[in-house]
């Protein structure tokens, strides 16, 4: 696929500045300080709110040095990335120094290829070489330098190591002769576009690729430097290519680059395996194996079921809710309230829908023990590096169905917090992809808090119940995903992720993360639980709650086969899924629900929209109309699936 040829043109290196370019947080700013000393000018890049730092390097004859904002890849998507693209397109540069993370060579090399294609004189500074060495990563610098035709320097910016070598490399920087060959239709379009493009600070071939990939910075540059006729002809070239390929040009280009990166990385990167590394490496391979990865996942799920469901929700909740709150705390609070407060306020605090007896008891006696065990288990998965491997396993499942590979990342992130995961759907290129991922997230990805409560409830039934719940939710996720993927054909893209090493979790890390998560969770849920309880109290006082429960009977009792009282749980579920689930948990602990009813209720409430916060984020990210439509579709679908599950389980005699 790829060969080395001279680029179609070689920009002349003049006396311009030196731009530091690289991914976010790879040490650009530290290296900038090493090169420029103390004095720097920080200002907004013209026409933007993005700050760019400039200084001068005495070791480079006073050349201007520009510290550009972090860029993930080209074409740029964020305002920060656009500024970096504009620096490359508009600033007179004698050299570009790519600061790369030596620990993540594939990601680094992907950007290196893009910069090399631009044909500007460049140097690759492999930073954080000490950390890479500690992780057993070794890079064959000489071979890499030969393959890229770019000077490669190892640096540890924080200690100033390699800075002199970098300065020397900048002095001998030249335009690389690296060239990637793309599929024939893309090559034809590049040649066609090159014929129309004016001279540019970067190679015409690179500018053509940026334009064909839909890069806005390239379009803005052409607006200023090319006439109307040229722009129309270029637009026609891009349109013809998109039609020929049947998928976004950027995806085809990216695949070719990833193939080259993979081949390069295989040759130049060595991961040493010591005795401990050998065991970890073997386990790492099992966890991501296309067959054995699934039994491993089932074992992890069983471990969490036992720890969260049986131990957390059974033993711990029994101790805290029954023994502590039920027999000591709540009777004392009720006694004090009835003695000191007027009847109405005492009822508000300690009545059936009391702020203390319901809101705080739910939050502290029921949820806290369950989410404590869940967050502990989640922190272990995180710290061990398994969470990242879960992304690899689920990626295969999603791509088999034809879904966009990148959409997998928000799905896995949703297991932490769906609201935040909705924000990460920004990494997806097209609006349709972003909408699709948002639908799946809002519909069928339970967040950490809800997972804890769900596992807690199902732990009171059996592991088979947990598997049925997980199977149904997964089936809905895949069915909706496959249907949506069919409506959005040819939108696949490759997921690139650097897997952290699989290791034994560090106890202090796990404890600190769990405690911090619990604090975050309590700060977020206690106000919502109190607000929800307050709403129920008011509805009860004005006589609307019984009416609402009666109104919900046709769906809750007749369709889902649940007790009418479960209506109030679903009402709370509109506010926050785990709040509603907690209400159902209480019903289960009072023996008001059978095994079938527990599974039905859990499936239904899992498919609810996660929480008010997530709806607000969806409205902000996808628009109020999309949020309203999603909400209007998801709630009926949740009840529909719940009813079907109830009928199937009853018909098969499960749980009898």
């Amino acid at each position: 696929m790829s060969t080395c040829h001279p680029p179609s043109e070689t920009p002349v290196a003049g006396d311009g500045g030196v731009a530091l370019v690289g991914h976010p947080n790879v040490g650009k700013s530290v290296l900038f300080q090493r090169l420029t000393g103390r004095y720097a000018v920080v200002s907004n890049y013209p026409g933007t709110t993005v700050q760019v730092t400039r200084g001068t390097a005495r070791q480079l004859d006073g050349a201007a040095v520009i510290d550009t904002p972090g860029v993930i890849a080209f074409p740029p998507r964020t305002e920060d990335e656009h500024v970096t693209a504009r620096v490359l397109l508009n600033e007179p540069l004698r050299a570009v120094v790519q600061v790369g993370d030596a620990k993540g060579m594939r990601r680094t090399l992907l950007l290196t290829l893009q910069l090399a294609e631009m044909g500007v004189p460049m140097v690759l500074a492999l930073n954080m070489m000490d950390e890479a060495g500690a992780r057993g990563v070794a890079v064959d610098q000489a071979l890499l330098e030969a393959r890229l035709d770019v000077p490669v320097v190892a640096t540890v910016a924080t200690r100033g190591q390699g800075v002199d070598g970098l300065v020397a490399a900048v002095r001998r920087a030249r335009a690389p002769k690296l060239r990637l060959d793309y599929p024939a239709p893309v090559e034809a379009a590049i040649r066609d576009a090159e014929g129309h493009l004016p001279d540019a600070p970067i190679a015409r071939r690179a500018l053509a690729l940026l334009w064909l990939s839909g890069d806005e910075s390239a379009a803005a540059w052409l607006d200023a430097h090319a006439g109307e006729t040229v722009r129309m002809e270029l637009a026609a070239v891009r349109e013809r290519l998109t039609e020929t390929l049947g998928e976004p040009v950027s995806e085809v280009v990216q695949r070719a680059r990833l193939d080259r990166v993979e081949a390069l990385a295989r040759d130049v990167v060595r991961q040493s395996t010591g005795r401990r590394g050998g065991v970890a490496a073997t386990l790492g391979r099992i966890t991501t194996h296309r067959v054995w990865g699934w039994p491993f996942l089932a074992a992890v799920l069983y471990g969490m079921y036992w720890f969260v469901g049986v131990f957390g929700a059974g033993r711990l909740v029994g101790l805290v809710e029954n023994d502590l709150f039920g027999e000591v705390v709540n009777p004392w609070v009720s006694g004090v309230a009835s003695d000191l407060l007027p009847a109405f306020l005492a009822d508000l605090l300690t009545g059936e829908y009391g702020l203390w007896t319901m809101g705080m008891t739910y939050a502290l006696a029921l949820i806290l023990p369950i989410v404590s065990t869940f967050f502990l288990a989640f922190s272990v998965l995180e710290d061990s590096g398994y969470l990242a491997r879960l992304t690899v396993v689920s990626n295969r499942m999603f791509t088999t169905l034809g879904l966009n590979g990148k959409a997998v990342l928000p799905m896995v992130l949703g297991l932490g917090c769906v609201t935040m995961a909705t924000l990460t759907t920004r990494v997806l290129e097209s609006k349709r992809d972003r909408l699709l991922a948002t639908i799946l997230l809002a519909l069928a990805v339970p967040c950490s808090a809800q997972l804890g409560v769900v596992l807690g409830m199902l732990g009171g039934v059996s592991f088979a119940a947990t598997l049925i719940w997980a199977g149904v939710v997964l089936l809905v996720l895949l069915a909706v995903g496959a249907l949506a993927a069919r409506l959005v054909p040819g939108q696949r893209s490759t997921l690139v992720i650097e897997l952290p090493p699989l290791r034994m979790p560090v106890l202090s890390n796990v404890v600190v993360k769990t405690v911090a998560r619990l604090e975050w969770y309590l700060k977020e849920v206690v106000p919502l639980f109190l607000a929800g309880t307050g709403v129920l109290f008011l509805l009860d006082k004005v006589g609307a709650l019984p009416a609402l429960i009666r109104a919900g009977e046709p769906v809750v009792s007749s369709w889902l086969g649940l007790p009418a009282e479960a209506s109030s749980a679903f009402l709370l579920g509109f506010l926050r899924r785990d709040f509603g689930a907690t209400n159902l948990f209480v019903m289960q602990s009072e023996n008001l629900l059978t095994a079938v009813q527990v599974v039905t209720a859990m499936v239904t409430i899992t498919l609810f929209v996660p929480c008010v916060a997530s709806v607000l984020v969806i409205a902000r990210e996808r628009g109020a109309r999309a949020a309203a439509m999603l909400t209007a579709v998801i709630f009926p679908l949740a009840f529909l699936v719940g009813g079907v599950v109830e009928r199937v389980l009853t018909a098969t005699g499960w749980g009898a």
Partner: protein
Amino acid sequence: MTCALCGHLFDPQANAACPSCPLHGGCLLACCPQCGHDTVDPAGSALVALGARIAARARGAAGGAA
């Protein structure tokens, strides 16, 4: 801090995602600039700080007794 999902090393205080988030400004969550994974930033937790103070005091007392 190091992202638990992708291993990326980042400064949680310099998180670019926060200004665009309508709900979590000033919260304990830190989002990885590479993959978006939201992680609780222990440095912003009052409970973690309290635990660290207690542990430091206990170590100090143990050292004094020895």
